[in-house]
């Protein structure tokens, strides 16, 4: 089918969609919350980036669409879309100054109106200004769409890079040398000169990278096998060395973040076996995390007299095998009933199990053993020789070891007979069964291995906090782990790490915006499923599988062009 030529009406339609999005973002309080975070100090705030970023994105989308079918409409389309998107916040601002919406929409406050219409006295004038600004951005984007693709890409990446550098100021001021910091950063955001310098540097870097990468790849591919292996070895060693000194580089606050990421990487590796390899969607994964954490806590705490009368108090290393063993056993026990069902029923049933575990932990019935709603304190910390891992910088090492073990296990399992059987089950249960794979047995193995890794994560988590409350073990943890797998790419090991850094690290660094974390997650899940179901760092087979339809697509279009050619 030949695409319908672009019309300006399409630009209006997309503008309206974008406008609705901006209105929603303003009404849920994002604009207000982000107006305090500076990207370029005192000039550009995160809220500007958000609103104008959306305007730019919508304008860019419409411009490129216009470019594909009707080149001369590219610039007007950008202008129309940009101004229509900007019209919505302008109208919202005017509406707030006229009517009190706060009875329903909590965030429709006068402050929001001030943010949307920053001018001093005449609101209508500032509304007009906003719309004009929107069309100016639209014009700029429309012109950008005409720039050659490679240069455009570099400019866009540099822009995004500068925003990220401003947003993650807390990270970079710790890592970079003092003299750089004084040039690049101010108290709240980048310095204007620094921002410009960074933009130019990043554009050049990205452009060079785009040029240089294929060449380097080619050159590495041409190396003899032995040298290639040596090169890989050197890279691995350098990476390990970097990891070993990472806590010192990062300092206490960032190490804390790294620890959290690490624990989620361990859990992600475990769920990756269950969901990514064997294709069993487990939404009650938090149950095993909780079981690991609680085993560690119950065995090592000096509290809970009922338990202490029966079992002596253990230290971290003595309790760890038990935590893993009990997670493994509960994986098997919960797995037996659960794995008889399949597909989406499995998801719901595991969700139910997760809730049951949480309710049991929370109940008064089991309070003498599990501490009830108050939880347990005084959980033991790992101790090697004279050193006890107390602060996040020291705790990084046990977690790192955990990650390496988890990585090793999953990487080896993946290419083993077991791993191939799991993938066969994932692709088609009936065919797998016909090939002689014992479905229940293999699924149980996946479930139990995943549970053990979750238990490891839980034990480390409990020990790291030193105390635990049942509130930490809600369904959001399961969703979090699932989401990081999806963003990274299901079944892919580097994907787990990419996903954990993006979905655990970023929100941890942007703690002040934590109320929007789950909202963004929701959007990310939907968007990933629609636009990039294979994830950011996909596994090769899964990529093929998901794009099967597209692989066949060219045949179809070829046929159609033929038939289209005949009548003429």
């Amino acid at each position: 089918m030949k695409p319908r030529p672009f019309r300006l009406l399409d630009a209006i339609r997309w503008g309206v969609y974008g406008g609705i999005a901006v209105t929603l973002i303003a009404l849920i309080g994002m604009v207000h919350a982000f107006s305090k975070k500076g990207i370029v100090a005192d000039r550009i705030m995160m809220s500007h980036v958000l609103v104008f970023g959306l305007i730019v994105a919508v304008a860019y989308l419409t411009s490129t669409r216009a470019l594909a079918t009707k080149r001369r409409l590219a610039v007007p389309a950008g202008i129309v879309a940009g101004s229509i998107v900007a019209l919505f916040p302008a109208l919202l601002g005017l509406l707030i100054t006229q009517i009190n919406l706060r009875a329903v929409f909590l965030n429709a406050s006068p402050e929001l109106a001030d943010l949307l219409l920053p001018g001093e006295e005449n609101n209508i004038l500032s509304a007009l200004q906003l719309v004009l600004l929107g069309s100016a951005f639209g014009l700029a984007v429309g012109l950008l769409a005409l720039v050659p693709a490679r240069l455009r890409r570099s400019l866009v990446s540099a822009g995004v890079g500068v925003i990220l550098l401003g947003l993650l100021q807390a990270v970079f001021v710790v890592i970079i040398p003092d003299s750089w910091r004084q040039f690049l950063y101010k108290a709240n955001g980048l310095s204007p000169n620094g921002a410009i310098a960074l933009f130019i540097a990043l554009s050049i870097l990205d452009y060079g990278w785009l040029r240089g990468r294929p060449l380097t790849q080619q050159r590495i591919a041409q190396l003899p096998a032995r040298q290639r292996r040596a090169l890989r070895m050197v890279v691995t060693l350098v990476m390990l060395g970097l990891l070993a000194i990472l806590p010192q580089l990062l300092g206490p606050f960032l190490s804390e973040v790294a620890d959290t990421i690490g624990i989620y990487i361990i859990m992600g590796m475990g769920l990756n076996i269950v969901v990514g390899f064997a294709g069993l969607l487990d939404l009650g994964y938090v149950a095993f995390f909780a079981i690991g954490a609680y085993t560690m806590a119950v065995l090592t705490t000096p509290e809970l007299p009922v338990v202490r009368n029966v079992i002596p108090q253990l230290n971290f290393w003595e309790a760890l095998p038990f935590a893993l063993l009990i997670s493994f056993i509960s994986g098997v026990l919960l797995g037996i009933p659960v794995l008889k069902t399949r597909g989406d029923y499995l998801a719901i049933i595991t969700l139910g199990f997760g809730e049951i575990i949480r309710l049991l932990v929370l109940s008064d019935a089991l309070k003498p053993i599990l501490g009830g709603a108050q939880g347990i304190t005084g959980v033991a910390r790992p101790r090697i020789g004279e050193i006890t891992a107390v602060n996040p910088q020291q705790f990084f090492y046990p977690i790192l070891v955990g990650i390496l073990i988890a990585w090793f296990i999953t990487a080896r399992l993946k290419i083993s007979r077991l791993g191939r059987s799991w993938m066969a089950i994932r692709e088609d249960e009936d065919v797998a069964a016909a090939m002689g794979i014992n479905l229940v047995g293999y699924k149980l193995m996946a479930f139990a291995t995943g549970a053990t890794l979750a238990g490891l994560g839980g034990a480390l988590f409990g020990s790291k906090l030193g105390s635990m409350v049942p509130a930490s073990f809600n369904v959001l943890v399961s969703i979090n782990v699932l989401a990081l797998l999806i963003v990274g790419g299901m079944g892919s090991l580097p994907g787990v790490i990419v996903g954990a850094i993006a979905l655990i690290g970023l929100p941890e660094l942007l703690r002040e915006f934590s109320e929007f974390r789950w909202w963004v997650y929701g959007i990310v899940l939907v968007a990933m499923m629609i636009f990039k179901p294979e994830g950011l760092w996909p596994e090769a087979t899964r990529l093929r599988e998901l794009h099967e339809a597209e692989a066949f697509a060219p045949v179809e279009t070829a046929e159609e062009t033929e038939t289209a050619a005949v009548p003429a």
Partner: protein
Amino acid sequence: MLARLRREFDIADIALYAIGAVLVISIIYGSYVTITSEKYTSAQWVNFVLFGLAQGGIYALIALGYTMVYGILGMINFAHGDFFMMGSFAAFFVSAALAQAGFLETNPFLSVALMMVVAMTVSATIAVLAERIAYRPLRRAPRLVPLITAIGVSYFLQYTARGLFGSGVKAFPNIPAFSGAWQIGAIAVQKTQVAVFVVTAFLLVFLYFLIQRTKVGRAIRSVAEDKDAAALMGVDVDRTIAITFLIGGTMAGAAGVMYGIVFRQASFIMGFIPGLKAFTSAVLGGIGNITGAVLGGLTLGIVESVGPSLFLDGLGIPAPHQLKDAIAFTVLVLILIFRPTGILGERLAKRA
């Protein structure tokens, strides 16, 4: 002998039936202890059942949406509980505005009708939008993909509600006409419970006729049976699916109003647990089966309100009502394992 037994059942089956037997025995024992101890009067039991039926009616209304969507798309619409939540918020704002105007006291029935209309419209709109934006592009995707999308939609809706309306619990205004109870002998029948019965029954009869007797209903049934065949017969499949979401959303909105009248509160996470329980009801009754959803909802409501006092109390478990939700989820797990077709279902046997 043992070898033959091993051949016939695998270990997993044996373990399953052992777990089932332990549960059944403890339920019977617990019930026996409670009943012989005469801790509760018969009037109290009747009240438990009545409360359970009112609660079950709400579950049934939500369960309809799950069951219809599952019947037509074979997909669990995780976000359905959040359509219900949005409807409840809409009802809250209408009732708050009406209470402020004094209209709620003078015309309680008209007010509730207005709440119904607004809540149903809001929930139905959100349901249709969710289908259009998030689910339709994924119609031919592998089976886990729409499920994960639905989880995403669920979180998006929950936290949108949180952002828009705040994280606190909103308390519905008191409607005098619906508060209090009618005393029949020793049994107190809450007026709100009667209201829930009436509304639920009305909506169910309406829905039954819609599905069984109208052209739209026939289209829905045909798409549920076989999408491709239905399309060949001239049924607009996309439109029919959208209508299914519309109906499901409408029922969820009504449930939101009922929930508001009975429990008098709305919060952004209120969709999760009732949603999960409504799904349990749908499975309990046999998913894909509309009568089954109603039956399942009522059964679950009763089990959940009677259960803690009946068998958990008898087993000597302290504070048994804390475990009310755990009972509901145990029912879910047991049903999915032992009788995944539910009480009335037969559809599923083909699908699973």
